[in-house]
């Protein structure tokens, strides 16, 4: 018996999700702006710090952990708005909601694609920011590790924020208001991981806390975002 249109087409959910990720990645790679804009933004803002501080190398190094993480947060915020907005505007979001693939899984796919397009480049690019901020080289490993563990949470919580605000015309500021408080723990543990490692201490506690937050977000955020999408599509 055919209960649902998707029962007629024998497609595995994994194939659909992979297609979803691949589509977003292709769009990102072709448009490019989603990838390079956060990086250019970071570079621009990081230039302002020495200009404002008067090029004191010591001051720069001491604020580097905070600056690196705040920049990663702000640069990601620029791109969060688009996670669901475009799909909502062209109607493809409704097909995700109606498909046999669970909506939370589609949310996870969208967040994964977003992370591959922004979080991962930010992590790879971070040593350049670190060099500009005079961060000791011994802390580079921990810095990249903390970004690797923290940026996926930004993408997940950001996807939730984007789902909450997608049908609003000027939702950008609201998205920031909603997402920033939720990301405060990521910032705290991320920046303090780098700080501890510049002081020569072990940062494993902070990195484990970041991992815990990531696992927690992975399990709950897709459901919250899917609920938000369903409310918005009603």
């Amino acid at each position, binding site marked *: 018996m055919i209960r649902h249109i998707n029962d007629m087409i024998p497609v595995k959910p994994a194939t659909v999700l992979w297609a979803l990720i691949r589509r977003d990645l292709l769009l990102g790679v072709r448009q490019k702006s989603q990838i390079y804009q956060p990086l250019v933004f970071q570079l621009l803002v990081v230039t302002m710090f020495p200009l404002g501080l008067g090029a004191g190398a010591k001051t720069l190094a001491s604020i580097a952990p905070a600056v690196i993480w705040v920049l990663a947060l702000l640069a990601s915020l620029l791109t969060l708005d688009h996670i669901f907005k475009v799909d909502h505007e062209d109607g493809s979001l409704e097909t995700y909601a109606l498909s046999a693939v669970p909506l939370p899984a589609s949310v996870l796919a969208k967040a994964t694609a977003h992370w591959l397009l922004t979080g991962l480049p930010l992590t790879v690019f971070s040593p350049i920011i670190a060099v500009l901020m005079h961060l000791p080289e011994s802390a580079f490993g921990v810095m990249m590790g903390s970004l690797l563990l923290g940026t996926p949470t930004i993408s997940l919580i950001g996807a939730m924020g984007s789902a*909450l605000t997608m049908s609003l015309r000027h939702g950008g500021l*609201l998205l920031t208001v909603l997402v920033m*408080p*939720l990301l405060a723990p990521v910032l705290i543990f991320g920046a303090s991981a780098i700080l501890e490692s510049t002081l020569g201490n072990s940062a494993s506690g902070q990195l484990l806390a970041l991992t815990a937050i990531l696992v927690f977000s992975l399990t709950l955020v897709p459901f919250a975002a899917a*609920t*938000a999408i369903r409310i918005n599509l009603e």
Partner: protein
Amino acid sequence: MNRLVKLYHQLGSPPTFYRITGKWLPWLFWAGVLLMLWGLYDGLFVAPIDYQQRESFKISYIHVPAAWMSMFIYLVMGISGFMALVWRMKVAEAILIASAPIGAIFTLLALVTGSLWGKPMWGTWWDWDARMTSELILLFLYIGVMATYNAYDDPRKGARVAALVAVIGLVNLPIIHFSVQWWSTIHQASTVSLFGQQHIPWSMLRGWLIMAIGTKLYYGYSVLKRARLLLLETEKHTVWVQKVIEQECQNA
């Protein structure tokens, strides 16, 4: 059926909610105001002066109840948000939306009085200590709920999205609180606990407790008053609202 369960079901329907809560309002208001006046009198004039903090300790009779209320109201919002999402109760939505500004004001009051208290005690208006920071983040969460509701043209959709925002915030609140505690803190630790040794004499505690009950009753009055108005507005095309208005006109 149990009377309490019956009352709960009755309160779920906007017209009955409007009728029943109308009778509660004056009681809640006067009980709340009188208790708060008594609590303030007890705290400001009767309670002994702290040997270390002197008179400035007395600001705590506003600061502590306000901080308690800021958390209590967020809890109410989270629970009514959950009810609004699961059972789509209009009354729960109204309670949620009505609570947000009251909670935000109590949070602001706690922050401002804390700042005024901090200046003579710590020598600074503001310090990024764990409790102050979580309270500030709580204010942001309140603003998020209010801004979400206002951003939507359709108030019911706005209320449902705001309900989800409140629930998400409630789940995240412990994480934010404990991660913020990673800094060493200058704020004094909790003095009042339900169980175990009390760190404060009864004569000083009494004012806080009276204020805590008084502010809760006042919140009850305020939230019901606001929720009733919200319901009148969202239900303005229904027969019961028209009847209410006709009655009000006859009484006037």
